[in-house]
């Protein structure tokens, strides 16, 4: 890919997703009453903050050129652990869910960097394992959260009129953006994805950084699980199916190159919101009664969106390969 098309591509990624987001919001605002009402906006943010967390971890993983399929069941495991620990207070629940996620992440990191097994197959296996652990801990049913310790506030509460999960997502995204832009760790993540051999020859600690990235992805998924449990009042061992693919789609729609090396934290957030809004708008559309598009259309539309973005990516890189 040459410079011009990279710029074009990043432009489409960075601004395209923002433009699409703005267009979608405008469309909704003009078409539906209450679309930009506080209730709708806040509930969209509240609900999608879980996906945002998972997508952030996925964004880092994909930038290194890897993939993490285990995030969905890791979130499920996190939600179960958090729910089980919620009677002991907010912190135990929060930290427990986080620790569960970190544990899965550590497994991934170890298997990928030490045993040298492909990220794809590694995280596929840990996905099964995490799901199994979640079901075991939860005894095959959802685990109710204690409403006495204030744990549910993590998912249902507001702070300064803004949902707490959205705060958490916002803060992690700010941190993520800071890390990728202003720490050598972040720059190494980008360098590994751009050219792992070169990064190694440049003397960068590639293996360690990769391990940390999978650890972080696990941790964020665990955190998403905590919010899941708090938001729905229960640890859900069978939730999280397909989350990983939703996250991948959001990251890709946000313009992160799947081959690694190029990516943006902010655009990933935009990607999450974009995919989330599609669902929201379908709901409104049905509510309006003009057409009755079932909720099932959302995955069709999401798939089409993903196709559009990757086709543009591929076209651009193909074009420049030929020019080179």
């Amino acid at each position, binding site marked *: *890919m*040459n*410079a011009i098309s*990279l*710029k074009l591509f990043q432009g489409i990624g960075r601004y395209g997703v923002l433009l699409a987001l703005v267009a979608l919001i405008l469309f909704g605002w003009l078409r539906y009453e209450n679309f930009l009402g506080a209730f709708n906006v806040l509930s969209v943010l509240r609900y999608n903050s879980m996906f945002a967390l998972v997508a952030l971890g996925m964004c880092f993983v994909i930038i290194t050129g890897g993939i993490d399929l285990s995030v969905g069941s890791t979130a499920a495991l996190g939600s179960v652990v958090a729910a089980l620990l919620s009677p002991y207070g907010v912190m135990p629940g929060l930290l427990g869910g986080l620790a569960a996620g970190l544990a899965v992440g550590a497994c991934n990191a170890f298997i990928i960097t030490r045993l040298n097994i492909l990220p794809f197959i590694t995280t596929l296996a840990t996905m099964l394992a995490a799901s199994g652990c979640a079901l075991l801990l939860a005894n095959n049913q959802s685990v109710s959260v204690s409403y006495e310790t204030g744990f549910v506030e993590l998912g249902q509460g507001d702070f300064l009129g803004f949902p707490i999960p959205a705060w958490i997502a916002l803060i992690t995204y700010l941190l993520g953006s*800071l890390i990728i*832009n*202003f*720490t*050598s760790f972040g*720059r*190494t993540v*980008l*360098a590994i994805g*751009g*050219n792992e*051999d*070169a*990064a*190694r*020859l*440049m*003397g*960068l*600690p590639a293996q360690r950084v990769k391990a940390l990235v999978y650890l972080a992805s696990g941790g964020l998924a665990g955190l998403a699980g905590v919010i899941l449990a708090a938001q729905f009042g229960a640890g859900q061992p069978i939730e999280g199916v397909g989350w990983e693919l939703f996250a991948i789609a959001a990251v890709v729609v946000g313009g992160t*190159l799947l081959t690694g*090396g*190029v990516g943006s934290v902010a655009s990933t957030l935009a990607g999450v919101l974009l995919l989330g809004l599609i669902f929201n708008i379908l709901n409104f559309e049905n509510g309006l009664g003009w057409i009755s598009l079932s909720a099932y259309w959302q995955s069709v539309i999401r798939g089409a969106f993903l196709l559009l973005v990757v086709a543009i990516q591929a076209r651009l890189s193909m074009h420049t390969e030929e020019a080179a």
Partner: protein
Amino acid sequence: MAPLLSMHGIDKRFAGIPVLRSAELVVERGEIHALIGQNGAGKSTMIKILTGYYRKDAGEILFDGRPVEFSSPQEAQRAGISTIYQEINLVPYRSVTENICLGREKRRFGLLDWSAMHAEAQALLARFKIDIDVRRPLMAYPTAVQQMVAIARAIGFEAKLVIMDEPTSSLDEREVEVLFGVIRQLKEAGVSVIFVSHKLDELYAVCDRVTIMRDGRTIQVAPMAQLSRLDLVTSMLGRELSQVLHERLDTSNAAGEARETVLKVQNLAVGRKVHDVSFEVRPGEIVGLAGLLGAGRTESVRVVFGADKPDGGTIGFNGRDNAISTPSDAIRAGMGFCTEDRKHEGIIPDMSVRENLTLALMPQLARRGIVDEARSREIVDSFIKRLGIRCAGPEQRIRELSGGNQQKVLLARWLCMNPRLLILDEPTRGIDVGAKAEILSLIHELAGQGLGVLMISSELEEVVEAASRIFVLRDGRTAAELKGDAVTEQSVMAAMAHGDQSAREAVHG
């Protein structure tokens, strides 16, 4: 004072095949030291052992007076050895600043201090008379600038020793001058430089001493100024010039002239490496393509075979012009191509000898899509016998064979197709002496049966011995065509070093 770097008795084997045999390299302080040798002579391995990329099997390395054995490029860098690799080993999507500063970032309050880093990158590049926006991604700039960035990165590490592996391959003359200016600055500052290049002019322009390697050994170490160009090329390619002119069968040559060409390439241009290359091959003739590394030999023949697309020129095969655009076209038209990169483009490592051998023949071996195993076995057995392929049997996996036997299987892959033209790119690379001789005599035998052979080899001795006609490429152009008595190592070397004129002089003078 003791030399900055001395490597003694370095041995290295890959899969049992020795690539370094007690090689030596000594670099003084503040010296610009040329390291030269053909492909496979062991230069890169030597450098990679020094920088901790590979581990040596035996030998001793003293750096700055202390014995060292680096376990990673990172460690070598910390000790003061910076390396600029032949292919630009940077991260294209990232900014120029990052590419220069990654690994020794400037921080303020624990976070990256971008403005300080941009300033440093700008200052470093200013030494190269380059003024660019360091915030933009590296790939936004031409290759030459990227190369300069790579060099700036290496120098920015305040190294005691800078290794440059063909740093000028993508620079134009003016940029090379700037680079040389910087190298001289480094020298004045007491930094040593190891300079690897195949361009003789450059070596003479900038280097103080030279180490010449061949077949994994250090052949000669001399002050640059005391070594003539011809001596240098001779020493590198390994043949005394006094050696007898090659004996040639004039008959086959004359016959070759009379026949139609099977392949005729005119004014071929491909990308940045091939500008104007012409050559031709007649049936029954072995034609050599000679030239130093980067002269455009491989690039040219890949286009002939349809593996890459040409940017200009005509390729006539069997009397039809430009009819080949994919390898399958070429194969159907009667061409075979043994690639130089046996491992990545030739063998299918997990398949058996039989499957590898019949890979191209498969469609012809099949009836309604089902492979005729009996015939396949027959053919494979006959080729194993004919070429003397040493293997446990046709079902042995090809990865378990030695390089020479793998190469024979690949040759057989094409021979069983009864081709009209066989292109051999470095057919004897990485092969032991016995197998080499066998392969060469086989090539002769095949040409005797009317097959046209186009052969690329960096082993001059080999080309001169085998070919009745040689086209010498130099910087992407056909520099000389030598035939008959004019095919001598001396004339080829001269053409490689200076061009056509001197080749003639070498013959007639």
